[in-house]
């Protein structure tokens, strides 16, 4: 629990001011980085375009094929990166706060793979199903996996972060085996296999963007509305209840919303890992532990991570594509190991 309650031990006012300024600068820097990365990501693909091409393409004044490539192939992916990054990061941040577990994240507690399995079943086994259904089905899978994890990890009235994470990983392994089973059982190609195994934005169109957009646009503000109550929850169950907070109810609602958010994202982008884990941690480092402040910042960091990952995935070895989920794993897994070692020192909690 310690990592969450970042020690904000009433600094002197002068230092407080400078810290505020530093935070504001960081946030501004983050926004700039996101914008720059968006433009870079639009430029880099199998062919590298100039910033001018991008501007022409976006304003519709392009004269050559670059306009078509940028608007038809690159733009949907960049927009999806934003949605996926924001969705996963906010969901991860809420999960970490509500379960009071620094190791919690959609992919660690089984939600990602549960949602992925449900989506794979629909996509491969029932190809005639309308794709609008996909986020809904994924949500069902995500909730089911999460409930399974929570019930299985709950022993003697408590669950420790490490056990919840391990049970989550075990459930994730089961769902992953299920995904593999459906991938080999039903004829599929490498790109769809990789989408569901590692998370890839390859070949996404504006359709998938419009499918996920409502979920992110509704759920993220809804979760942000809950940020004050999440702050109250972070004080501990007894104190929160004393302050008049319906602890269990708030916890259930926010968790459900977070699971829904991450499941919808998985339906659109596959089983992308570790963004939901890393982004909230970085955000708390930068701006402190108040949910109202750090959840939006985490969203920006998530988007930035996804943009970087997807740009690397496309641009590293053209014309081949690495799934972006692999890039996020390579970035995120060492961070998880670091967190694990750190929480270990704090007395096994």
């Amino acid at each position, binding site marked *: 629990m310690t990592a969450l309650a970042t020690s904000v031990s009433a600094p002197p006012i002068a230092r407080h001011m400078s810290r505020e300024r530093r935070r504001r600068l960081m946030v501004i820097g983050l926004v700039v980085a996101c914008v720059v990365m968006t433009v870079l990501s639009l430029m880099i693909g199998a062919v590298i375009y100039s910033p001018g091409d991008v501007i022409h393409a976006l304003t519709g004044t392009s004269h050559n094929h670059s306009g078509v490539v940028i608007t038809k192939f690159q733009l949907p992916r960049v927009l999806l990166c934003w949605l996926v990054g924001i969705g996963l990061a906010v969901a991860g941040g809420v999960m970490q706060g509500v379960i009071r577990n620094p190791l919690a994240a959609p992919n660690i507690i089984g939600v990602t793979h549960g949602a992925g399995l449900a989506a794979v079943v629909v996509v491969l086994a029932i190809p005639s199903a309308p794709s609008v259904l996909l986020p809904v089905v994924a949500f069902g899978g995500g909730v089911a996996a999460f409930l*399974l994890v929570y019930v299985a990890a709950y022993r003697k009235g408590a669950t*420790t972060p490490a056990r919840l994470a*391990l049970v989550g*990983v*075990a459930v994730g392994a089961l769902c992953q085996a299920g995904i593999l089973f459906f991938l080999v059982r039903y004829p599929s190609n*490498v790109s769809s296999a990789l989408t569901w195994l590692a998370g890839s934005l390859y070949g996404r169109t504006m359709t998938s963007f419009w499918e996920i957009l409502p979920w992110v646009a509704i759920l993220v503000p809804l979760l942000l509305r809950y940020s004050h109550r999440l702050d109250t929850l972070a004080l501990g169950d007894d104190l929160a209840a004393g302050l008049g907070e319906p602890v269990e109810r708030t916890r259930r609602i926010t968790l459900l919303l977070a699971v829904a958010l991450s499941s919808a994202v998985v339906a659109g982008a596959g089983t992308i*890992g570790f963004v939901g884990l890393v982004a909230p941690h970085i955000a708390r480092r930068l701006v402190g532990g108040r949910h109202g402040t750090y959840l939006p910042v985490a969203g920006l960091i998530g988007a930035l991570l996804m943009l970087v990952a997807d740009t690397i995935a496309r641009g590293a070895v053209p014309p081949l594509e690495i*799934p972006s989920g692999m890039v996020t*794993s390579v970035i995120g*897994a060492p961070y998880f190991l670091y967190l694990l070692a750190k929480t270990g020192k704090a007395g096994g909690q």
Partner: protein
Amino acid sequence: MQQLPLAGGTSVNLMTRPEQARTVDESRAAPLEPASGRRTRVGAAAGVAVVSLALLVVGTVWSVAIGPTPMSIGAIFSAVLFGGQSTTAAIVHGIRLPRAVLGSLVGANSAVAGVIMQAVTANPLGAPEILGVNAGAALVAVASLTFLPQIAGVGLITLAFVGATMCGVLVLVTAGLGRGRSDPVRIALAGVTLTTLIFSVMQTMIILVDPSTSALFHWIVGGVNAATWKDISTILPWTIVGLVGSMALAGKLNLLGLGEDLARGLGARVGQIRVLGAGLVIILAGSSVAVAGPITFIGLVVPHIVRRLVGVNNYVVIPLCALVGANMLVYSDIISRYVDPPSEVPSGVVTALIGAPFFIFLARRHRTSR
């Protein structure tokens, strides 16, 4: 009967009447009961041995009998015993028999690697696939096939050993084993995460070199579907070395099972046992990954089942694990052919589907130490 803690027993004795005191005494005696139950159950062991041998024979015949070309039992036996030039004989010798034999060998290897790993790390979640050993071996195997395509056999296996060693050590260091106390859940978590990381790197490599679904699946899930006699001759020496070595180490592993302090008190060189055990795990797990890919959960599941049936004496547990592990993979391979005939799924998918629920059960059961 209520289970009173031993320390409280005497004070209860002083205050209660004789008949109640007797129940207390019984409950004090109760903790000894499982201890005697932990000895080898000879009958159970013999039973498991006979049943699993019989199942293995049946499984092998079954495995040879099924496939796109149906065969009668008689035809199989004549093909195996007398050879011949018929199509049946060619299919049996070239495709189906190696598959069954390799399944047995890899299954035995994985299960025994699991037993030793669990004994050496004193961790019920210890298994080559959990602690990153399989992933390390697979990564190095893929890397060497990528960059040194002409490498095969002994060279590949040696490199797989190196990868397995590196990842195993890395996991133990990350999880803080070096600092004394080892927390099973933490080690398992570190191992699983490292496995994810390695698989990402590995899949990227596969995509860059051979973007075909079959190569991808072979190195992600593993399977004995495409076994050849060459694979068998590659793995067989290591299986023999590994199994003989494990039996030689069994007595020392029994000592280690008493707890590190007690084992030391009885004169065991704990560090030496651990290093030897780790070496055996690397030989067994590394060689099976090199020929069959990272097949999961046999090493985790089989030792638990066998110990539950026959107790904890490693002289009995190790050979039985080899038998049961062989069964698990041979039957998984059989199931893999019934899923979607005439095409099939990698046998590793079947073992994963069987083993993952068991992993959940073990993860749930284990207490996190503080």
